[in-house]
């Protein structure tokens, strides 16, 4: 019972961290702060525009693969203890 609770709590901690990044990269950089970021240019891209049409999508892909890695590690840890 206790082991399961730690497993679940660690999972929830990962979710909070990853979903915060998810929110900041898309709703933050791509929508709420887009005008401020557009002042910065990266090559031909205005940064806010780039996050809205490119960057946020790359971040999403990376987030899921990080989650896969973290959870596989967590699963392995609890499997050995069981």
């Amino acid at each position: 019972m206790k082991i399961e609770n730690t497993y679940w709590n660690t999972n929830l901690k990962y979710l909070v961290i990853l979903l915060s990044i998810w929110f900041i990269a898309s709703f933050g950089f791509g929508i709420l702060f887009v005008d401020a970021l557009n002042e910065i240019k990266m090559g031909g891209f205005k940064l806010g525009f780039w996050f809205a049409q490119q960057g946020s999508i790359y971040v999403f892909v990376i987030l899921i693969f990080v989650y896969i890695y973290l959870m596989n590690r967590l699963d392995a840890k609890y499997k050995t203890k069981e």
Partner: protein
Amino acid sequence: MELQYWIWIAVGISFSLYIGIAIWSRASSTKEFYVAGGGVHPIANGMATAADWMSAASFISMAGIISFNGYDGSVYLMGWTGGYVLLALLLAPYLRKFGKFTVPDFIGDRYYSNYARGVAVFCALIVSFTYIAGQMRGVGVVFSRYLEVDITTGVVIGMCIVLFYAVLGGMKGITYTQVAQYCVLIFAFMVPAVFISIIMTGNAIPQIGFGATGSDGVYLLDKLDGLHRELGFHEYTTGSKSTLDVFLITLALMVGTAGLPHVIVRFFTVKKVSDARKSAGWALLFIAILYTTAPAIAVFSRTNLIETVSNKEHANLPGWFEKWQTTGLIKFEDKNQDGLIQYVADPEINELIVDADIMVLANPEIAKLPNWVIALMAAGALAAALSTAAGLLLVISASVSHDLIKKIINPAVSEKNELIAARLSAFGAVLLAGYFGVNPPGFVAATVALAFGLAAASFFPAIVMGIFSKRMNKEGAVSGMVVGILLMLFYMTKFKFGWFGGGTNEDWWFGISPEGFGSFAMLVNFVVSIIVSKLTPPPGQEIQSLIENIRKPN
């Protein structure tokens, strides 16, 4: 070689491939029919999910829509990809752990009530039917445009193909044809994109190319912004919608994506929980290839279009202009009779109307690419439309045969008869979808986008709380789903079809468009569910242990 021959060859080869796969992978049990036997490899499932997900609209229309809306089009890019993060982190692994066949299965079991199951079936059917009618129409349009048959014949051909592999193969047949369809559609999308990127910027990667400089040394995006300002359009790289509305539309599309039954059900087909997580990652990676290329195509084709037509003599335009004019997708009216094309924002002076679909369909011709590339586009567009239609069909047939007949009406039904019922309902659903494809209700285009709002307002809260809250009970979940979907239906029929007194943009509640309203309805769903569940008894011990079990590691 003649274009028409190329098209017949490309379409013929890809269709025989799909049919061959269907015969090889036909389903013999309900488990194979509903979830492909539950042993699909995560990468294969990722590809199938991507093909399932990317419809004719993603393939044909999205780049065009972005091309005309610039930054405002970002809602689709972020909305239709960001949902996979929610899916991977909040839904897919737990639903796989739960291990049944359909979304109403989960709702019905977790909320220990056939009433909840019934509501979920109702929501699944509404969402899937609004979506599939648009797909069959897409199939018809693509057939008629490329094979030069009329739309009805096109829809009928499409129906026969889908019928063949969905009814025969069930989820198993659909999964492996979708893998093939993904390969066809992504190849067809990328080849012209890479060619055009090389032609316009000298960079073979479109994602980088559209931030690079053109042959004149000016950054492409700066040039496009300048052209837009000159012609009176809104600047390409900045928005014209309110921040609140952009925020809510993006959220509704994301949450709706995560709540769409035909997407969720794909995660029931893998062997274990870790595979469900993996296939969500692969699915998004495969989707991202197209979704990061689309905004590049949007910029290339927008610049190309303006430079080719603006203030040019109509008589001297390249051949594709006239060809697409005859299809009605390009309309030109020389208002001031000067023989030049005035393409500007002001509707009084503007002489040119270009349909958004042109941007992808005519792109190879505009960029003077060889005929086989155009044929490839036809095969790709058909793959996109067929794969999505098949995935939706399966949800509809499983809702009827499994959730309605097996779980509610007649639990004693044998597996053999359930399988027959599944095939019959798939058959019925194809006929109905085909009917809507031939006689599209005027609101099809409008409702496809709204299907996301409906999914967001109904399923997402019920599933998420079913996993993350042990206190959520059947009273709360059912009242939340009912209020959520009715509120969304009310708002969309009021402002889209003029029911309940109708209304204009001025009357929108808090300035929220119907597309963004799903976010609001979802919030209401959450609030109603929580309040009602606090006032009613908590779920029993059995449900508590069911939730514990879903959360446990493998």
